[in-house]
């Protein structure tokens, strides 16, 4: 499952859990409210029932004691009790299964309450008549005083009073023991006066009635007194409390579930929030880095070309110093990209450090692989050139201690005010790169660099056409053996022939070198030289190759194909390598030289002494012939130092067992000197310009 799906799933889970929490809270809340309400109502109704039962008992007691009483109160109380019970039994809690155990008690209570009515009615009935009889008897005692038989008074009165009293006691004290033992009745006698006979009759009637019915009354009263309504309500209350606590426990677990789901959701939300905050920060960082990288160079941390263009637009009087590390590509190739990167960082730091000491510096930029720009505002040209010189001094041939390798670099610098700043500076820089004579250039419109750029395009077109129409031709310049003064070999020099006109390589080769056409040119020259060599079997021929030619593997294979296919002439085709610093470090050069030697051909070093002449590489490379640069030869007649240079070169060559060739021998005077110095061969206009042969 991918993380996005996971995230959605967990979101849904939390959503569901959250909803669940809310729902359980809702359920908890409503259930709790409902339960509490029902519980309160139940307890209230129960209390009411209990209260009515107590008051009912009180009313019965009152009725028992008072001579006369209002029965309405008792009836009303029974109605109230019934109503309280109805209220209680209609409580919704009782409908729940949980409270089913209360049903038995509730049934009992209902029956008890229902039984109160008939019992009460009987009680009232008996109580009324017993009470009436007792009332009558207490009143009736006084009648005895009116009888004629006064002698019987003492016999009758105490018995009547005592009987009445014991009957009253029996009722009042609720104890029939007072009735049992004695004979209460009087025997009636026909001899008695009518009054006495009537008295005895009525007296006996009532005493009899009370004696007979008081026990019934008392037992009914006891039954009423012992009614279980009160006890049952107490039992229900107790049982209810227990059940209710259990019910509440259920609620508590609801609350617990609610609480935990709430905590879970809460914690999860915090986690999500934190994670999102983190990711958001990451996103913001990335955005910042991207935004930064849009205007900044990642390697050096300097601003880039985009930033330069933006910044320039904001300035009133912008000026730039454009610096390009010479042959940086070679450094990368030689020391590897890592060293190259490190170097770039060091150079960037160096430029920044130097710039920080200068006035008007807006910013330092890295605008290309090996190009740096320092942008200034309001600094005059003269100062800017001074600043450029400081940069050159600080960077060129500096020993970069931080690098493991020993690398020496140089920069070419262009200073420019004229918009478009960068393009113009670039053109100016390219122009000095080509000539290699200067290190600092100030862009001027007068330099005609734009024209030159247009020229380049024209030249490329020219070369293209020449290749297409087979107008690339090697011209050959004879090389004279100075001992025999005979032509011994020819150097092949490329030309473009356009009708009668012959175009010198000076006009097209530099431009062509930047294109694939250069490969074609070299190939044509090599092929045609082989043809010439075949046609002139008495002479050796030499072909100029640059380091870049030798690094062009395709070209190299084509060359050696020719060697192999023309084995008879192969040992007469020599290779002239242009003197260059790049020469001595390259295995490819070494291998190439070996392969040339394998065909019995010779290898020349061309233009020796023109640039960074270094004798060291003669140790590594199997060079056969040393061709001294024309700039030395040309001036040997006038310039003593050049003559000394030539002398020492020749001495070195002799010691190294190298043959020497002097080019640009343009007159007799030079010829004499080179002869005198013991140079082996010479070429130049004194003998012949390059021609068709």
């Amino acid at each position, binding site marked *: 499952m991918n993380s996005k799906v996971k995230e959605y799933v967990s979101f849904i889970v939390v959503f569901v859990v959250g909803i669940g929490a809310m729902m359980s809270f809702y359920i908890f809340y409503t259930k709790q409210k409902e339960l509490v309400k029902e519980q309160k109502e139940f307890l209230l109704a129960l209390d009411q029932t209990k209260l009515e039962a107590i008051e009912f008992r009180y009313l019965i007691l*009152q009725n028992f*004691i*008072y*001579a*006369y*009483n*209002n*029965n*309405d109160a008792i*009836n009303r109380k029974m109605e109230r009790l019934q109503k309280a019970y109805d209220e209680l039994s209609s409580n919704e809690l009782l409908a729940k299964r949980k409270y089913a155990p209360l049903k038995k008690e509730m049934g009992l209570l209902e029956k008890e309450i229902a039984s109160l009515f*008939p019992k009460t*009615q*009987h009680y*009232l*009935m008996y*109580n*009324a*008549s017993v*009470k*009436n*009889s007792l*009332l*009558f008897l*207490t*009143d009736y*005692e*006084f009648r005895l005083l009116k009888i004629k038989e006064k002698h019987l008074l003492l016999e009758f*009165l*105490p018995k009547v*009073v*005592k009987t*009445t*009293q014991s009957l*009253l006691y029996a009722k*009042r004290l609720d104890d029939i023991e007072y009735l049992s033992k004695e004979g209460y009745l009087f025997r009636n006698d026909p001899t008695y006066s009518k009054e006495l006979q009537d008295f005895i009759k*009525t007296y006996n*009637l*009532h005493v009899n*009635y009370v004696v007979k019915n008081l026990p019934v009354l008392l037992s009914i009263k006891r039954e009423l007194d012992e009614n279980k309504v009160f006890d049952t309500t107490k039992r229900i209350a107790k049982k209810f409390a227990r059940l209710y606590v259990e019910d509440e426990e259920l609620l508590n677990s609801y609350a617990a579930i609610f609480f935990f789901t709430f905590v879970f959701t809460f914690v999860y939300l915090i986690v999500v929030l934190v994670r999102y905050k983190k990711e958001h920060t990451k996103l913001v960082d990335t955005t910042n880095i991207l935004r930064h990288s849009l205007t900044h160079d990642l390697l050096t941390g300097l601003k880039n070309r985009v930033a330069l263009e933006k910044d320039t637009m904001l300035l009133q009087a912008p000026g730039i110093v454009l610096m390009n590390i010479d042959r940086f590509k070679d450094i990368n190739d030689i020391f590897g990209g890592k060293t190259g990167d490190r170097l770039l960082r060091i150079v960037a730091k160096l430029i920044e450090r130097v710039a920080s000491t200068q006035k008007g510096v807006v910013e330092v930029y890295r605008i290309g692989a090996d190009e740096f720009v320092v942008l200034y505002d309001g600094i005059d040209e003269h100062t800017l050139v001074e600043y450029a010189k400081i940069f050159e001094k600080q960077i060129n041939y500096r020993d970069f201690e931080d690098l493991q390798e020993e690398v020496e670099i140089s920069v070419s610098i262009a200073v420019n005010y004229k918009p478009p700043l960068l393009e113009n500076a670039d053109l100016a820089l390219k122009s000095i790169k080509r000539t290699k004579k200067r290190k600092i250039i100030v862009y001027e419109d007068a330099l005609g660099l734009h024209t030159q750029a247009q020229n380049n395009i024209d030249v490329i077109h020219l070369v293209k056409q020449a290749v297409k129409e087979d107008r690339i031709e090697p011209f050959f310049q004879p090389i004279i053996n100075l001992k025999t003064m005979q032509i011994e070999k020819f150097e092949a020099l490329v030309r473009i022939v356009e009708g009668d006109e012959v175009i010198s390589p000076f006009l097209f080769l530099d431009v062509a070198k930047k294109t694939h056409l250069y490969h074609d040119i070299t190939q044509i020259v090599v092929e045609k030289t082989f043809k010439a060599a075949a046609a002139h079997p008495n002479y050796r021929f030499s072909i100029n190759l640059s380091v870049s030619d030798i690094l062009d593997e395709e070209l190299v294979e084509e060359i050696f194909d020719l060697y192999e296919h023309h084995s008879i002439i192969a040992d007469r085709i020599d290779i002239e390598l242009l003197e260059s610093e790049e020469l001595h470090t390259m295995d490819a050069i070494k291998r190439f030289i070996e392969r040339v030697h394998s065909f019995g051909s010779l290898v020349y070093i061309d233009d020796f002494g023109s640039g960074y002449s270094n004798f060291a590489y003669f140790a590594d490379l199997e060079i056969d012939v040393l061709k001294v640069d024309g700039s030395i030869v040309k001036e040997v007649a006038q310039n003593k130092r050049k003559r000394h240079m030539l002398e020492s070169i020749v001495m070195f060559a002799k010691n190294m067992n190298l043959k020497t060739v002097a080019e640009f021998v343009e007159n007799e005077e030079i010829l004499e000197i080179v002869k005198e110095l013991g140079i082996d061969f010479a070429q130049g206009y004194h003998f012949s310009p390059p021609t068709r042969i």
Partner: protein
Amino acid sequence: MRLFFLLFMCAVFIVEAKEAIVPIPKRVVYDKQKALLGKRLFFDTSLSKDNSVGCVSCHNVHSGGSDSLAVSVGFGGKEGDIRSPTVLNAVFNFRQFWNGRAKDLYQQAKGPLLNPVEHNMTPKLVVERVKSDETYRNSFKKLYDDGVTFANVIDAIVEFEKALVTPDSKFDRFLRGEAELSQKERKGFTLFKRYGCISCHNGINVGGNSFAKIGIFFPYKNARSYPDRYAVTKDPIDKNVFKVPTLRNVALRPPYFHDGGYKRLIEAIKAMAHYNLGMEIDTNDAEAIESFLHTLTGELPEILDE
């Protein structure tokens, strides 16, 4: 000395409570519109099968609330099985009918309507009869959501009965301190209490709030069998037991007792003393009690004037 002490002690045991009889309130609460509708129904003979009797036939609300027959005559001239009880102040009775078989007026009112020897109706017939009258239809429509139904007919009649109370009797005014009883009446009231009548005849209705056996000391000579309390409870104790009737307006509605056995009030008083109090009271006392009972006659219900 000892003797008098004993006598005194006996007297002390007789404790008097606060007044056991309470006056009827001057105003009672009822729904007047419904009560007026009920009044019309009460007087309407179309509520009997043969259109011969209305409620009022046996319950003359203008005089005592019952009729003057020992046994009422109902449907087709058939006789009932017991003296018709008064409808006046019936609302205060704790149970209805002589044997208390109806809990309230709602239960009671159905009885005579459906009794074959009284109105001899069925609920369906009652509704039909009432519905056939446009005034009834409109009134019921106005007062009841569900219009004419048997329950609503009963409800209207009961509402009328609630209004049938007789306030402002002389005795009630005496209780409220608004009137004086004559000496005789006063004596009668005292005897009423002293002889124990009040043990059963108490409360707002001076009775109607308990059951009692007729013939406690001597068996009551019933002319025939009557539906007593025993008919309801099947408890032997309840044989010959009836609801103690109200004594309000008692002077207005002879003959007396469940069987209408006594035409004169004074005879009824003496009979009660004999059967239920086990004493023979002399005419003086009986007359005093009678004059007290006359003070229980109240004003006719206001609603009868409407």
